């Protein structure tokens, strides 16, 4: 026995259907050489599914096919198929054969009959063209002609045995749906579900006015398959099924490369930017510049030369370009050179699943490395919340698996404002980086604040920054905290100005004081000088005085001596030298 490489047994035992996603669900397609039953209500896409299976076989697998049309005429089926771009006219010559088998309305019945005639002619046709695939579209129509349940059962078994004996890959479609009327038919076909090797159920439901299509593989003998309901849509090229998430998630490549958020300051706050392949959630109230921030990211990505897809749910793509240009984010030239693809999707039509599949197709076509969805929260409006949530989850997984950096915005409604960041889709837990944009009402004005609530694997700033939009772009500015309050906008500006003035005043005061001190110093210097001079004068005076006194004294003594001499008084002046 061969070792299993994947949970799905792959091999020649599968007949690929060419339906995007379905071959992944079943691990390769319908069971080869076996019979598959395709059940679904009216308009659930049975005929498209069946025809796509045949067209793919004829075009890509070298397996010619026969289409037995019990309900619609082959002409109409072919015309409908043209809209999917399948070149039926070319295929019909050799590889695809239509048999019109609508029961005539004037057909008269009398007694029992069976389908041997059909099998005989199919036998001939199969041999003639070497058909490998065969579709019985709306088998219930012909079974309805049979009188009783036993006859129906007998004919179905006859058909099944014929298919098995010829080793044809058969696909039988039959009507069955969720409504009351068709539950009877359901029971009638109950045995068919046991008989066949594979049963697929298509479901078309309307939830809150939004159409949703689901596909489920009910059974698949000898193969594992995804048992969950998978949403699908009938797109421009046929059926597209949204493949499961489980085995996509398994091989996620983790990158530690950083990509710029488009705002320099934000990159710093995040320690270099978003991680490549991360999913980033930007939440905020209306008008908090969510789109602008997402646009900045897109512009930065294009600037780096990365292909980017921008999906806008609110506005037209031209509006997006114009609006973002007003804040200095130029996307127009990136769109021209093909790096950027803008897609606008209105919320009114289609379910979340439809959008998911469409976005995935667009992103794959464009080869996008960066994906912006603005806003994701509209999904919860179209259809029920739970499906929108699972869609958001799948998108996150898918983009991660493909290494696409995903930036989505999400609108917070008034209700969730009570609990901060009660993101409507609960995708906040899935997001790797969550940036919250808020308004701060203060002193009669609203200002935008930005804070990073979380960022996995990244040291990030815990401070609230003010988000400023100008025609030069997006900038982040520090907020002022004063007295425990965060100041933004005018208040911040006032505060800044007040501080500037205060600094100026201090500076001037300092200067003034210095000047005064200088003056005082100078004055003192002058005083010191004059005193010095005075001192000198006094010293001179003093010196003079001393000299004068000495002279005087000498003069006096001399004069006395002289006088004595002159007077000749010797007796009184004893001891004196006689001249």
């Amino acid at each position, binding site marked *: 026995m061969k070792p299993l490489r994947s949970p799905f047994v792959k091999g020649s035992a599968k007949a690929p259907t060419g339906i995007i996603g379905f071959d992944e669900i079943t691990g390769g397609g319908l069971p080869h050489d076996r019979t598959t039953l395709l059940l679904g209500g009216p308009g659930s896409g049975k005929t498209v599914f069946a025809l796509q299976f045949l067209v793919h076989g004829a075009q890509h697998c070298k397996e010619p096919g026969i289409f037995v049309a019990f309900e619609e005429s082959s002409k109409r089926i072919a015309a409908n198929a043209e809209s999917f771009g399948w070149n039926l006219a070319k295929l019909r010559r050799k590889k695809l054969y239509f048999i019109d088998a609508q029961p*005539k309305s004037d057909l008269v019945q009398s*007694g*029992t009959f069976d*389908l*041997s005639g059909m099998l005989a002619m199919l036998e001939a046709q199969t041999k003639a063209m070497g058909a490998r695939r065969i579709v019985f579209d709306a088998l219930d129509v012909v079974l309805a002609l049979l009188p009783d349940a036993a006859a129906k059962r007998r004919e179905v078994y006859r058909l099944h045995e014929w298919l098995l004996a010829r080793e044809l890959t058969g696909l039988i479609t039959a009507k069955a749906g969720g409504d009351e009327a068709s539950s009877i038919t359901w029971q009638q076909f109950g045995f068919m579900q046991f008989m066949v090797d594979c049963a697929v159920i298509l479901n078309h439901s309307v939830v809150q006015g939004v159409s949703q299509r689901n596909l489920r593989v009910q059974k698949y003998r000898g193969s594992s398959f995804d048992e969950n309901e998978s949403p699908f849509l009938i797109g421009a090229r046929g059926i597209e099924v949204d493949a499961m998430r489980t085995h996509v998630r398994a091989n996620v490549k983790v990158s530690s490369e950083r990509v710029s958020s488009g705002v320099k300051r934000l990159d710093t706050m995040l320690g270099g930017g978003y991680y490549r392949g991360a999913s980033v959630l930007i939440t905020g109230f209306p008008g908090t510049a969510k789109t602008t921030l997402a646009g900045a990211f897109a512009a930065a990505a294009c600037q780096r030369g990365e292909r980017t897809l921008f999906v806008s749910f609110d506005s037209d793509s031209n509006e997006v370009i114009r609006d973002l240009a007003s804040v200095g984010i130029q996307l127009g030239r990136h769109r021209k050179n093909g790096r950027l693809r803008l897609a606008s999707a209105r919320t009114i039509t289609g379910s979340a699943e439809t959008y998911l599949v469409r976005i995935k197709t667009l992103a794959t076509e464009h080869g996008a490395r960066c994906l912006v969805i603005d806003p994701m929260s509209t999904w919860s409006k179209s259809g029920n919340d739970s499906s929108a949530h699972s869609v958001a989850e799948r998108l996150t997984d898918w983009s991660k698996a493909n290494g696409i950096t995903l930036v989505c915005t999400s609108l917070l409604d008034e209700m969730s404002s009570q609990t901060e960041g009660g993101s409507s889709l609960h995708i906040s837990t899935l997001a790797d980086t969550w940036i919250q944009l808020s308004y701060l009402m203060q002193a009669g004005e609203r200002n935008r604040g930005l804070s990073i609530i979380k960022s996995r694997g990244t040291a990030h700033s815990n401070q609230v920054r003010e988000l400023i939009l100008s025609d030069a772009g997006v900038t982040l500015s520090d907020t002022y905290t004063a007295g425990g309050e965060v100041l933004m906008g005018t208040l911040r500006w006032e505060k800044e100005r007040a501080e500037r003035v205060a600094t100026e005043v201090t500076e001037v005061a300092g200067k003034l004081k210095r000047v005064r001190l200088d003056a005082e110093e100078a004055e003192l210097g002058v005083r010191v000088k004059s005193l010095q001079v005075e001192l000198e004068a006094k010293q001179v005076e003093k010196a003079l005085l001393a000299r004068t006194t000495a002279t005087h004294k000498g003069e006096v003594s001399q004069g006395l001596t002289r006088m004595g001499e002159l007077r000749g008084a010797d007796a009184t002046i004893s001891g004196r030298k006689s001249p």
Partner: protein
Amino acid sequence: MIRPAKSKSKFKFKFRLYVAGDAQNSTQAVANLTALCRAYLADRHSIEVVNVFREPKRALADGILMTPTLVKLAPSPAPRRIVGTLSQTQPVLQALGLATPVE
């Protein structure tokens, strides 16, 4: 009680019966048709029996899904098709335009 329409006309009825070999309902149909023609259209009918297993191309060309199928080719207007063993005579006669209620 049903009687054949007063058939002054001498036109001939032309039938083609598609059968699936010697399957039970096919042989029944052949028998029923022969009996019916003998009773109501004596000497003015012809029956061609086509075995779809032997001539599947003809079945394909004529769009025969179910067997047995009786096709009325003549007289016109509008070729008629009847599927089944032809066991219920009245609807068959009505479909062939042969039935007229008797007073």
